[in-house]
């Protein structure tokens, strides 16, 4: 069987995701983040705001918040992707120059809490491609920091190795 068949959608998505991550690792020393709120309850925003406070201090790791998507490398999206915010999210995504990545933050953005209906999409990855997922309700600033460091490749992710089976020998 020849191997020059065109790539399938999933393979293509995986390759482009990997390329985005590699590109983003170039920004490991200095990354600009733009937050987009697609209808969240603003508790995730409170945790995000704490990142700039002295205890967590994301600036020491080289991350910065920017108000303009034109200057951003990473879009941090919260909220269950309310349909009324489609315009906002898609415009912000289009306005962010490549290479860029999207980090979806919070249980709402990952599909939890609110199911899909005619007012909300339910999950951010139904609107824009998401590269890093950070669960939590809200994710603590430590979880957000870990998400950012995983995004730029400075930390490996740990959740793949996590097992929720306490009676299994592989429990950490």
């Amino acid at each position: 069987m020849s191997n020059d068949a065109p790539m399938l959608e999933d393979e293509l998505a995986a390759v482009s995701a990997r390329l985005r991550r590699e590109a983003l690792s170039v920004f490991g020393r200095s990354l600009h983040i733009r937050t987009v709120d697609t209808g969240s309850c603003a508790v995730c925003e409170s945790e995000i705001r704490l990142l700039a406070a002295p205890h967590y201090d994301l600036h020491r790791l080289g991350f910065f918040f920017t108000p303009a998507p034109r200057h951003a490398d990473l879009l941090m999206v919260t909220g269950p992707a309310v349909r009324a915010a489609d315009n906002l999210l898609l415009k912000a995504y289009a306005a962010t120059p490549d290479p860029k990545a999207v980090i979806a933050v919070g249980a709402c953005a990952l599909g939890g809490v609110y199911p899909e209906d005619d007012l909300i999409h339910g999950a951010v990855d139904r609107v824009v491609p998401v590269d890093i997922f950070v669960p939590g309700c809200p994710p603590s600033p430590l979880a957000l920091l870990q998400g950012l460091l995983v995004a730029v490749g400075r930390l490996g992710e740990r959740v793949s190795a996590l097992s929720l089976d306490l009676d299994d020998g592989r429990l950490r």
Partner: protein
Amino acid sequence: MTHAIAGLVIAAAAAWLAAATTALAARREAGLRGSAACALVGGACAAVAGALLAIHGSGTTLRLGGGPVGAATFRIAPLAAPFILLIGLVAAANALYGPRYHETGAGTCAYLLVYHLALVASLAVLVAGDVVAFLVAWESMALLCYLVILRHHQRTGVARAGFLFIALSEIGFLLIVLAFAILATQTGSLDLATIAARSHRVSGAWRSAAYLTALAGFGFKAGLVPFHIWLPAAHPVAPADGSAFLSGLVIKLGVYGIALFGFTLLPGGPAWWGLVTMGLGAASAVLGILYALMERDLKRFLAYSSIENIGIIVTALGAGMAFTAYGQRAIGTFLLIVALYHSVNHGVYKTLLFLEAGVIEHAAGTRNLDQLGGLIRRLPRTAVICLIGTVAIAALPPLNGFVSEWMLFQGLFQGFRIPSHVAGILIVVAGALIALTGGLAINAFARAYGIPFLGMPRSRTAARASEHRQPVAGPALLAGACVFLGIGAPLVLTALDRVARATTGLDIRAELLVPQLTVIPAHTDFAGFSPTYLAAFLIAVTAVPILIYLAGRPRGTSRRPPVWDGGILNFKARMQYTATTHANPVRVTFEPLYRPHIDLERASDDPAGRSGPVHYRFQVTPIFERYLYRPVIWVVRRAADLARPIQSGDVNLYLLYVFIVVLIAYAVYE
């Protein structure tokens, strides 16, 4: 050489007379073009004459006529050289502009006739050699300009504007006649050169009276505050080339008159003349630009900006006179050079801007800044030329406005060299006021360029603007002149130095231009810069990033997302800044000056404004008209009312007057 110059001046006048007569055939396209061609030839002659006169540095005298009509003396003096150059450039630019701007027809015929005659009259003012010739030329120029303003007399506001123009022009003319009368009687001659030679015969009080009357009289024409109220009314209503002629040249004739009196006819006046002149100039500059910022009509805005620049020129003249009176003759001559240089500069770029305002008005259908927008895409060539003019008038390097304002500041900042502390402080305060106007001017012109040209069109007519068949050559010529006058400043200043030497007798070439094309303000250890090298440096500095970009930009296709607007669902052109909002910080800061009258009408008391539109009306109070002119007019009217019974129309009463006068004459002459 002097014969050549005289010949060129006569040729210019002849060409413009030819243009005036050809204009009578302007009902057809050929007549329009023929008239323009004659005017262009005349403009070229005048420009060359002015340049040669400046470079040559000495003038000549002609006598014309004789016999029963009387002779008229024409004197081509170096002081008039920059203005003759300017009239040439303005006439040439207007000639290139005219055929595509005017429609053929009887109105255009009449207009071009009076316009070209006005050019001849202005030239005559500049070369008049005796008092009568000067006054005749001056008054003809004023009347012809009045007719120029009345081109579209049937439109609203034009008649009133023309009336204001002619009324204040006449008051100024009376004062000029008075000033010349004082000089003529005191020196016993009507010839200007003789008056200049015998000016020491005019004694103290008469000297000051003559100078102050002349300052006021010429101030009416120049547009000095508080004599300026005709300018913002009259300049906008004339056609674009007429406004350009008025703002570019005619107000400079007022400046020429003040310079004539201050430096030639009454040289060596006391310092307080200079300080008063400088004070009026500084006040005009600040008030001019402050009122300009409140204007939404592009041409009214440019008219107020002319007042501001006249203020700058007159400040330079006044400070020059003050420095000379305190013995700092080098700086005094330097400031005279600055005044002449800025006159030419302003003439060039203001003409350019008025011509482009005419193009915008014809292309976009409106002069209202709040309805324009996005013209940089619809009118690209106009946008580039207008940008050059705007950068020049905002005094940004490396163009001509920057050089002349830099020189003005360097001259004013040397006020510490004056022994009198009060005068020194006043000069530096004037410098501070001019600096304030400089900052406000940048704000004003960022607004005047950015609102019409950038952003999105704010009205349908602006969105449909087209550059098809719009004049380009005339404004382009002036843009080239701006660039040359800026980068070639060392050349221009060499010529102006000769002019100043002929006028004040002092040659400051060594303290003005040093090797390496550098300009210094009359003192070697104070300041200096080279306009030419600065321009080269700026080009190099901007070229480097451009070259890096061109070499290193990505080869692939680039993505063009829509403009980031914050995620608004529907961005409308009405959401943009308007000219009114752009000037809001200045409006709020200077509210005690504007004393605005504000009307606010809401459809309902709903604080969110949901129930209907809100009407907001902001009106600047015209303080000069209200507090200066109206009381004077009221006094005159009251006096006229009181005197009315004399003109009762009763023949018997008139016979009584005759009888009384005969009795008095008999008593007096016996």
